[in-house]
């Protein structure tokens, strides 16, 4: 079975370490906050200028001046700080964020990522994604392995305009966890009950299947 959005978030959360500063993108990455392992304390960075994002507010504590990068109303946790956009991206660009998790339309074997526009169809803008991928060393991309029509999103070369070049080394899809090394995807883990054959069939870019591929457990 392909991983649910929650399971993908759960799997990413296993990469969290005590004391990490983490930036979570919109969508599945946001859900990672719900699965921070017991005994681990992390600070969530929201690029609109909040370090230490807390839970969503209640109806009573909702505040229009307190939002995250997805424009959702949030709270600040104890130990949080708030600052300008320039300061926020100094943290990001300066490599101070320990883990960045974000979505994508496509990734390729060179570590390129495309996530911000589909020419002629969809223009949402890059927001902070280009700064995040250029500034971070430790990035996990979360995405579905293939489109609804079965077209692979793990390619030899991205077909869409890039968000960043050569900056992605870890990809979690609904079918597998893969790393990118030396111009190939390396299969590290499979989703429970998903066959290596299915992953091979749905990966358009060069894929290496080592002997020690692990099946994820939840």
């Amino acid at each position, binding site marked *: 079975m392909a991983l649910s959005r929650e399971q993908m978030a759960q799997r990413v959360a296993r990469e969290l370490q005590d004391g990490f500063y983490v930036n979570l993108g919109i969508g599945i990455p946001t859900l990672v906050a719900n699965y921070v392992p017991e005994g681990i304390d992390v600070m969530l960075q929201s690029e609109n200028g909040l370090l230490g994002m807390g839970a969503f507010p209640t*109806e009573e504590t909702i505040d229009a001046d307190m939002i995250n990068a997805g424009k959702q*109303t949030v709270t600040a946790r104890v130990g949080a700080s708030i600052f300008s956009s320039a300061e926020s991206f100094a943290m990001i660009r300066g490599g101070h964020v320990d883990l960045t998790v974000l979505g994508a339309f496509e990734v390729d074997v060179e570590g390129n990522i495309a996530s911000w526009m589909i020419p002629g169809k969809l223009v949402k803008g890059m927001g902070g994604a280009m700064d995040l991928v250029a500034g971070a060393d430790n990035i996990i991309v979360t995405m579905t392995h293939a489109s609804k029509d079965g077209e692979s999103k793990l390619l030899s070369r991205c077909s869409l305009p890039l968000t960043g070049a050569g900056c992605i080394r870890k990809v979690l899809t609904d079918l597998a966890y893969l790393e990118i090394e030396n111009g190939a995807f390396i299969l590290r883990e499979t989703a429970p009950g998903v066959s290596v054959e299915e992953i091979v069939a749905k990966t358009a870019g060069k894929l290496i299947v080592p002997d020690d591929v692990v099946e994820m457990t939840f």
Partner: protein
Amino acid sequence: MAGLDKRVATYEEALAGLTDNMTVLAGGFGLCGIPENLIAHIKRLGVKGLTVVSNNCGVDGFGLGILLEDRQIRKMIASYVGENKLFEEQLLNGELEVELTPQGTLAEKMRAGGAGIPAFYTATGYGTPVAEGKETRQFNGRNVILEEAITGDFAIIKGWKADHFGNVVYRHTAQNFNPVAATAGKITVVEVEEIVEPGVLLPTEIHTPGIYVDRVILGTFEKRIEQRTVRKA
């Protein structure tokens, strides 16, 4: 408004001198911390051909989105179009010139503009369409592109509290782009929820020192919420 007293009483005074084809820097992220009354007054003024620099362009019917209705904006420099249909439509049909700029680069362009730095190198956007036509270099094995600073004829800013010296504090994440935009306007206008007596704002808590600010006006704000998200109590 005289000497170090930056207060003005009307929005006419606040935006006096704003004319066609000027560049306007606007603070705000989404609808959070936007100078909503100054934007509304730009609509009333009817000035056209504006270049607007802001992370977003409001939403349909609120914030900077209302300046798209009468095509007052010729060029938009922003990082995110989002769910603003009129923005996306005018972009796709070529009516509106749009320079999509990475969010951190946009903030730094204004920071640099206000700080007298004409341009800077950044890895952000290297190898992407953002890099097209820009000088590239390598520092310590890292590929970077040259990005130029931005300044504006006007900066329109939303603060929380100000004193008559133009010292400003922002409330929570309504800070966002406001302090950087405030530094980069030839004329910087701040609208606030409260104007306090001199000395009430402590020197240690000022976000934007008054030297950057030319006019301060008291406003009332709707503060619309874009994504109302709550948990159960």
